[in-house]
């Protein structure tokens, strides 16, 4: 069994043990679905869908570092260094596995809930809207997770990464408003970024930032832990 699979499986197990935090995160990001359904605001499904995505993304951006903090405090503890990293040829697998797990669990579960909502209520709506939303969730949560990892290494406390992310989010909503660089957008732009091909292509550049951040994070963690 490779180091990567060992680290990924343990990270999943560790994250799934944070049941209260996971439940709170999922409840917050899916509560609106229940509210929308109970308020019977489904006449214009596409508008409702974009509104839902907009609020979900803002909540997810703030929840990601909190959840990441549950599996990575920002500092290598003595027991981690002397009894876990001790056996790893590639110590960065320990850190990257935690980031990947948070990304996949958080984005994956929201996608599952949203897809359920889509299947139940979308009726005639264009399925490209669903696909666009799934892509936005994956890219945005991945970007926020990679940024949380970066800030956690920089600030040596994962929870502190909430502050720069909040500032970045506010700047994104009011100033940046560009799919390549913004954490998220104002409601008007949400629909364009989810449906227009050129905006989707620009937003996909986020994948490059995610990869670059992961590489930087991995090198930084390795430098801090290899003895």
């Amino acid at each position: 069994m490779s180091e990567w699979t060992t680290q990924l499986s343990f990270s999943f197990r560790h994250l799934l043990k944070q049941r209260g935090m996971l439940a709170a995160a999922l409840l917050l990001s899916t509560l609106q679905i229940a509210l929308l359904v109970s308020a019977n605001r489904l006449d214009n499904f596409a508008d409702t869908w974009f509104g839902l995505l907009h609020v979900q993304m803002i909540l997810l951006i703030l929840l990601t570092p909190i959840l990441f903090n549950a599996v990575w405090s920002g500092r290598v503890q003595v027991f981690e260094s002397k009894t876990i990293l001790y056996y790893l040829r590639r110590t960065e697998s320990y850190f990257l596995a935690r980031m990947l797990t948070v990304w996949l669990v958080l984005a994956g579960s929201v996608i599952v809930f949203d897809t359920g909502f889509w299947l139940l209520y979308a009726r005639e709506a264009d399925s490209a809207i669903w696909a666009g939303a799934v892509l936005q969730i994956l890219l945005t949560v991945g970007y926020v997770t990679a940024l949380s990892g970066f800030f956690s290494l920089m600030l040596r406390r994962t929870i502190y990464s909430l502050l720069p992310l909040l500032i970045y989010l506010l700047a994104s909503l009011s100033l940046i408003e560009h799919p390549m660089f913004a954490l998220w957008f104002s409601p008007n732009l949400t629909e364009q970024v989810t449906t227009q091909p050129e905006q989707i292509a620009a937003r996909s550049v986020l994948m490059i930032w995610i990869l670059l951040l992961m590489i930087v994070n991995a090198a930084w963690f390795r430098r801090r832990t290899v003895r």
Partner: protein
Amino acid sequence: MKLKVCEVSKRYDSKVLDGISFEVDQGIVGLLGENGAGKTTLMEIIATLARPDTGKVEYDGKERDEDLYAIRRRIGYLPQKFDFFAKISVEEALDYFCRLKHISSPEERKREIEEKLVQVGLIEHRKKQFGALSGGMKQRVGIAQAMIGDPALLLVDEPTVGLDPHERAAFRQLLSELAADRVVLLSTHIVEDIAMTSERLLVLHEGRVNYYGDLSTFIRSVEGKVWMYRGPSVPESLRRRPSLILSSQATAEGVEVRYIAETPIERSVPVEPTLEHAYMYANRKRTDYE
């Protein structure tokens, strides 16, 4: 495993270890020294977690850089104050350590975990979360993780700190059992831990080896030098050199003082020396006694 430490020196801000050498191939070696004597640094160097500035450590004739991860897989290490993720169960934690040590078959992992849990007396607590365990139980999980893969060299650093007397006694018993077919290096500043477990002793003082050899020879080195004085008060000659005093307690007649000296003062009787007496003598002789 034959462990050979040759002229190991290490400096951080000041010199921590200075020319440490010793060899061992089986049984428990007690590593004794005051706080700051260099015990943890020496353990980290032997565990391959730190590099010596000069000197080398050989594991069955191999040095760390020849095959670092193969050597590490033959070492079990229990660091000071072992800890783990609070919400992970004992069984899950050990399963993770099995995977880290490349035990890939599920059957083999299951067998290994059961064997180690029985060995450390935690089989009943296998489902408990790590955060819900007592200090002694956590240390037992620590020793179980170190034992996974049956390492030929077991390094335990201050394992009994914070344990209650029952837990300490049980832990010493466990270490004695584990030493039957491997080298165990037990670092501590608690003399009693060594007296109850070790056949050999390495005494560190200010980064240097003050003694390496068997316990009985070490204790015999202070025969005829430990005395007990009974009188109305502590004599002036002892008061001037308080580091010669091993213990002092008030009695109905005045005081009872145990001390080290080549020649006794009046009203003193010889006392059977213990490991603690020998240790205090060894680590103080350079300053006061001579």
